[in-house]
């Protein structure tokens, strides 16, 4: 694997292999005082973030550091990026400076694909840490790792993803990955927050959360962004919360074993009630914890080996 741009590129074997590595890394580090592995010593990893994201950037940074890579953070605010340098020039500069891997977050869909194209000659790996409304593959992988941990397996499990499907890169990554892993995915959202063309995705679509809850093994809630609330996608935050928010009553409609996931940051009281977020059924902090191991696994698969075609 040279780049991780999209979960659409991962078949079941490739995805499972990354999840297994993450599992093993988690166990390898369990209870250790020194949480540092020498595996990526001398490798330089750059996080290039054009959008704010403490959560994802820190997770990648810790992952890289625990693998002994040199991790350098570049954010759009504090570099030549803010002076109008093109993405291409920035990427080529980082590669020329010796980056082995660029982890990129960008508001434009496809930015990571473009970056991978520009950097192919330099041999630099690219990890997509979220590109516009397209994909966020490590988020989906850590979600899958968390589901596997909580449910034992993903094959045949029924998983609902609830909320702003239209604008969500997390959804696109999860739909591909969960389909590859054999899950039965149902997207629950008002029609205004579903993309035209969703009928061709390997999912079922529903507008009624309550009807889906009793058959679910897991529910994944998406953040409702402030600009959507004012964008006329639904009448009001209150109405959205009434129809699609996960409150305690709804939690009660789900089977005992069913898990609640949220990629964060959460809007408590909107898409998720506080009591649900803090309940033992919620795996939200597990997701964050697994995120580090998962991203270590991704770096391991990208950087610890020679390219398979060389």
């Amino acid at each position, binding site marked *: 694997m040279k780049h991780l741009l999209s979960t659409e590129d991962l078949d079941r074997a490739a995805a499972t292999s990354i999840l297994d590595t993450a599992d093993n890394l988690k166990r390898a580090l369990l209870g250790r005082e020194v949480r540092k592995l020498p595996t990526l010593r001398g490798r330089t990893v750059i996080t290039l973030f054009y959008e704010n994201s403490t959560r994802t950037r820190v997770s990648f940074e810790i992952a890289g550091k625990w693998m002994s890579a040199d991790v350098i953070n570049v954010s759009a605010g504090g570099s030549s990026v803010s002076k109008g340098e093109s993405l291409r020039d920035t990427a080529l500069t980082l590669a020329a400076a010796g980056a082995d891997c660029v982890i990129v977050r960008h508001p434009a869909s496809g930015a990571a694909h473009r970056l991978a194209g520009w950097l192919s000659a330099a041999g630099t790996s690219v990890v997509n840490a979220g590109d516009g409304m397209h994909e966020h593959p490590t988020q989906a992988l850590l979600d899958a790792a968390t589901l596997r941990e909580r449910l034992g397996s993903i094959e045949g499990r029924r998983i609902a993803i609830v909320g702003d499907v239209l604008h969500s890169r997390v959804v696109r990554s999860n739909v591909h990955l969960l389909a590859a892993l054999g899950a039965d995915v149902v997207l629950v959202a008002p029609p205004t927050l579903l993309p035209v063309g969703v009928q061709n995705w390997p999912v079922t679509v529903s507008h009624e959360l309550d009807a889906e809850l009793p058959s679910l093994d897991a529910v994944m809630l998406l953040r409702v962004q402030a600009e959507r609330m004012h964008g006329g996608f639904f009448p009001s935050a209150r109405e959205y919360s009434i129809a699609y928010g996960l409150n305690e009553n709804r939690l009660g409609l789900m089977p005992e074993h069913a898990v609640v996931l949220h990629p964060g940051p959460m809007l408590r009281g909107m898409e998720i009630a506080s009591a649900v977020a803090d309940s033992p059924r919620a795996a939200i902090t597990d997701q964050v914890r697994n995120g580090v191991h998962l991203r270590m696994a991704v770096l391991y698969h990208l950087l610890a080996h*020679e390219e398979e075609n060389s």
Partner: protein
Amino acid sequence: MGIPSRGAPLARRLAVKIAEFSGVEVPTGTLDVTLYRDDLRRGPTRPLETTSLPEGGIDDRLVVLVDDVLFSGRTIRAALDALRDHGRPRAVQLAVLVDRGHRELPIRADYVGKNVPTSRTEDVAVLLDEFDGRDGVVLK
């Protein structure tokens, strides 16, 4: 502590034998050294194996590393590094089923099943019932 993959069942078998001969129950574990190897970048992606410390950990204890074949010594170097991250044993020893020579590091085994002189181009494969359906050592 067996080094996966084939060192792990060998370690368990040794523990059983020690119990039979001496009545002493020796705790076992496995130690995956993949993340500590210095030759990772020379091959395709290696899947990680399991590390499980023996009950009670390894601090201040005598740890015997067990592997199937001792060759360049690089796996054992990686194992010593890995071990250091898990604790501080009183002493570390090495047991191997086959020592085929051609060391590249100043490492030697404390216990050797059999010394088998080989050429560099030959391949020594240890077969174990747990993996291969039969026990044996094949020289190719």
